[in-house]
Structures are given as C-alpha cells and as structure tokens.
C-alpha cells in the first residue's frame, strides 16, 4: 500500500458523514416500435452528441427485510453490470480474463416517494447508493434479507448535465440463476429521467419538466 496517508483524518473514519441525497424522478414508457425515434431525439438533445449512446445490461435483485408486525419492509436493490469487463486490479491476481463480468456490485436504497407536497412536479424519494464487493447477495441473506424478485435490464443511457436519461427494456428471468434465458416483460420500454441531488435543492423539478416537454409526443413523462 502507499507509504504515507496524506489527507486521512484518523478520527473521522467512522463518522456518519453520509450526505442525505434525494432522487428526483419522472417516468414514462414507449413501445418498442417508437424506441428508435426516441433514441434519435435523445441523441440530439443530450450531451456527447458525437458518441454513440452508452448501453448497459444490468442484473437487479430486489431484497426485502420484513418485520413480524405492521410497518413497511425495507427494500434494498442489488445490481451488477453484466457487460462491464474492466476488472479492478486487485482481483486480477492470476489471469486476465477480459470476458469475465465485473466484480462490482451496486447496493441501492430507495425510500418511499415523498407525497407530503402535492405541488411537486416530479417524484422525490430518498436515495443511497453504495458500491460493494461481489459477496453482496450472500451478505444480504446473512443479515436477514430475502430475495423478492429479480430481473435483467438492458438499455441505453444518456446524460444531460446532471440529468440521467435511461431507456430500459425489462426482461423476466425464466429459470433462476440462468441469465441467458430471458423473456421480455412487455412490448414497451421504460423511460426514466432522474437527478440525484442533496435534499432541499430547488428548481430541479422545473428543469426536468422542461426537458420532458421536449420528448412529447413520443413519450409523456409522469410522476409515479
């Protein structure tokens, strides 16, 4: 490891300095046949016009931790990319198998959407994202979580400043554990606009609405 540890505040290692973040979301859907037109429009509207849109292929597992009594269960989402081959170096001791899927797992907490303020233009929910090692499913099971459902999401991602735009096709997994045998869930695709920002940031809803207007009439984006 490095010889000196500049900038490491020893007393601060365990401080709970996790910022409180919120996700601002608008969702819509588009039928497969209109998807190309939407992709074209998004390419024109979003950043990095000169590059082909980024694609992704994720496997998401949704875990629940229930109470015996009343009260909402806690939902955690474990995701991992199936198309990213850039392994972290410390896992690559003996072989460079560039076709192996990524070791990173993504653990995500999404709160209930905040419905206290009816005048909000977009859905707001608390959000926490954490990258973890590959033992995530075993770990969650060990601390009491149970797998609720899982799916594969394939699609395209665009960026427009802080905003993330995804067009996702959701697939059912026909036999658990086999990620090759997939079946589309429907004939349409999920369109999602989202921004992650510290809680209490203003003006985001307006920006997102303005952007969503530009996607009409291909998709109409709504609060969930």
């Amino acid at each position, binding site marked *: *490891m490095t*010889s*000196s*540890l500049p900038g*490491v505040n*020893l*007393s601060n*290692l*365990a401080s*709970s*300095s*996790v910022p409180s973040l919120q996700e601002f979301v608008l969702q819509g859907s588009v039928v497969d046949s209109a998807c190309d037109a939407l992709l074209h429009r998004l390419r024109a509207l979003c950043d990095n016009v000169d590059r082909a849109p980024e694609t992704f292929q994720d496997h998401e597992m949704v875990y629940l*931790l*229930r*109470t*015996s009594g009343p*009260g909402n269960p*806690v939902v*955690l989402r474990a995701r991992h990319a199936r198309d990213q081959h850039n392994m972290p170096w*410390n896992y690559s*001791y003996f072989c460079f198998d560039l076709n192996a899927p990524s070791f990173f797992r993504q*653990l995500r*907490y999404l*709160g209930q959407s905040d419905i206290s303020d009816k005048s909000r233009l977009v859905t707001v929910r608390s959000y*926490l*994202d*954490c*990258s*973890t*090692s590959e*033992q*995530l499913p*075993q*770990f969650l099971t*060990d*601390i*009491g979580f149970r797998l609720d459902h899982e799916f594969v999401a394939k699609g395209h991602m665009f960026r427009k400043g802080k905003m993330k735009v995804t067009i996702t096709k959701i697939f059912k997994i026909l036999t658990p554990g086999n990620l090759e045998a997939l079946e589309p869930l429907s004939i349409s695709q999920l369109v999602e606009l989202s921004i992650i920002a510290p809680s209490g940031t203003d003006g985001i809803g307006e920006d997102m609405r303005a952007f969503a207007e530009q996607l009409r009439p291909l998709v109409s984006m709504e609060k969930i």
Partner: protein
Amino acid sequence: MGVTCVCQWPVTESRTVQQTVEMLTRRIEVLGAVKTGNFCVDCETYQSSVPTINSTKLVHLMHNSEQPLTCFSITDTGAFLVADNHLEGIMQKLKGFYTPRKSARVESKGQRFELGDFLVKVGIVSIGPHTKGILVEVEYTPCIIVSDCWNLLSEFMQSFMGNQLPSMPTTLLAKQDLPVTPVDTMMQYLEHFNNFKKGPGGR
C-alpha cells in the same frame, strides 16, 4: 496489500501500556524502521433488534486507515462485504432492524512504521474510554500467498519480538494457498477485538 499478521502483545505487571508501546517502538526503530504517520482500525457493532431474526445477529462495521474510503462489514457468522462508506448510511436506514450497540466502539490506534517492504503497526486497543491492551500488525507487502512467505515473515517478527513470536493466525491457516485480501486483516482484528471484549477489564 500483502500477507499480514496481527497479534496481541502482552502487557506485563511491571510496565504500563504506554511504557510497553515505547519499548516496542524503540526495538523497531533500532532495526532501522521509519515512522510514516499514524494508523487507526475501528469497529462498530450493530445488533438486531427484531425478534423475527432468530437469536441476536451481530453486524460489525470496520474501517482501516490503510483503506480510508472502504467500509468492511463482517457478521458474527463470518459473512463479509467490502463496500464504500455509504454502507453506514444504509445501515442507518435499517435502524428498525439493527441498532448500534451502546459503547461497543473498539479501536486500535497508534504509529505506523516502514522497513523495506515491511509494514509494522503498533496500536493501543481501547473500548470506549477504556484502554485494553496492545495489538501489533506486521505486513510483508510484496507477497500475497501465506504459505510462500510465512517463514520469512516469522524471521522478521522474531527480530523484534524475540520469544513472543506468534503462531499463524487462524484466519490465515484456513487459506494458506489463496491470495490474501484486506478483509483477512480485518478478520484478524475483529477476532482480537472480540477477545478483548470478553477478557478481563484493562488497566
């Protein structure tokens, strides 16, 4: 990140913890080691508070200044997860299910030395405000296979530990031919921390 051995250093009746640390520091510096700052390993324990999870479940969240942005999580059954520091935030979201144990924060804090490719850390262990003892961590950074370099590591430790040489930690015994990871070091610390918690009160 190389093969690491963490061992407890006994504090005899004739010396205080502080004096023992000074004695150890002198021995290490005589070998030519260079001080390269401080280090800290800490551990916070969460306990399940819901009866549905049969028997109480413990989840330890640990940090190591060597990997300052990483949070190691180890359960009492040995399942582990390496994550970024946002994991703490997620644990807080589970506050209906897991609550931090009061005054169960353990840490080992002290100085870090470098000697060639070796790293030596001498830490004073404390539980809450109480000092409990001393842990010495020795790491041989270029090698990641325990069975390859254990003899070499022993020879090095003997040079300043004398007859207090430790035997191979159980964590390493189990995986002599597999590459070590930072988690193995944290497992060793956790084992010692648990021993300190069970053992008689410090001085």
